[in-house]
């Protein structure tokens, strides 16, 4: 139990240190206006401007699940391709 608590604290400390690092690393650049080239998949920006919408929220989750499914299909196909390539010729 002590071991688990110790590990939990170590990882939390690493995350906090990393978070502080990221904050100070990005702080100067955040003062300047970033180009709005990032695609917001209907998330926070849209929420703050558009407000709460259950239907749009579910559409968003479905979109994210589709993205995960596509990435999974691609990766599994590549893995299968490589595992087939490694099979000895009969």
């Amino acid at each position, binding site marked *: 139990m002590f071991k*688990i608590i110790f*590990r*939990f604290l170590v*990882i*939390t400390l690493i*995350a906090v240190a*990393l*978070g*502080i690092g*990221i*904050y100070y690393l*990005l702080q100067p*650049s*955040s*003062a*300047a*206006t*970033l180009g*709005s080239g*990032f*695609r*917001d*998949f*209907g*998330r*926070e*920006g*849209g*929420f*703050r401007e*558009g*407000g*709460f*919408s*259950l239907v*749009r*929220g*579910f559409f*968003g*989750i479905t979109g*994210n*699940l589709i*993205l*995960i499914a*596509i*990435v*999974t299909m*691609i*990766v*599994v196909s590549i893995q299968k391709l490589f595992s087939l390539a490694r099979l000895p010729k009969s």
Partner: protein
Amino acid sequence: MKSLKTNFWLDAFIFAGFLAALQPRLTGIAIHEWLAVAATATLVLHVVLHWDWAVGITKKFFSNLFHVSRLNYLVGALLFVAFTAVITSGLVISRVVMPAFGLQTFSSRSWLEIHNASSNLTLLLVALHFALHWSWVKNTFQRLILDPFKHPRPQTQSRPQVLPMPMKDIKAL
């Protein structure tokens, strides 16, 4: 079996929570923020449960050049950094969590864009992490969810009923 079950349900819980937290439109900003804070704690627990694996790979990271574990390790490390960036930028622009602790935050378009970009990156990395563990997810799902339905456990044999001794036999003793 117990740790497999724990890992599977914890991971499923994190995955569902992550998907919901990515959609503030669905949850509203307050739940979005508190859900992200809760997700951070469960994610740390996820890393704790895979501590031995992470330490093992760290030790032999450079000894074996081509190994799928190295890719898993790199994706996991990147995911940790990206998620930390999401949480940090989220806390900077927080409107519920930080004010609840009496800390003032500022509304910054730039931090919001950093928050969006890092959450998009995190989503892609989660997808990659999920894809790399697809066979584990599939097998564990089959073992824990589908198999109990397909092959239900035979009912345990009931213990032989012990009948009370008749009174006359007791008297005979």
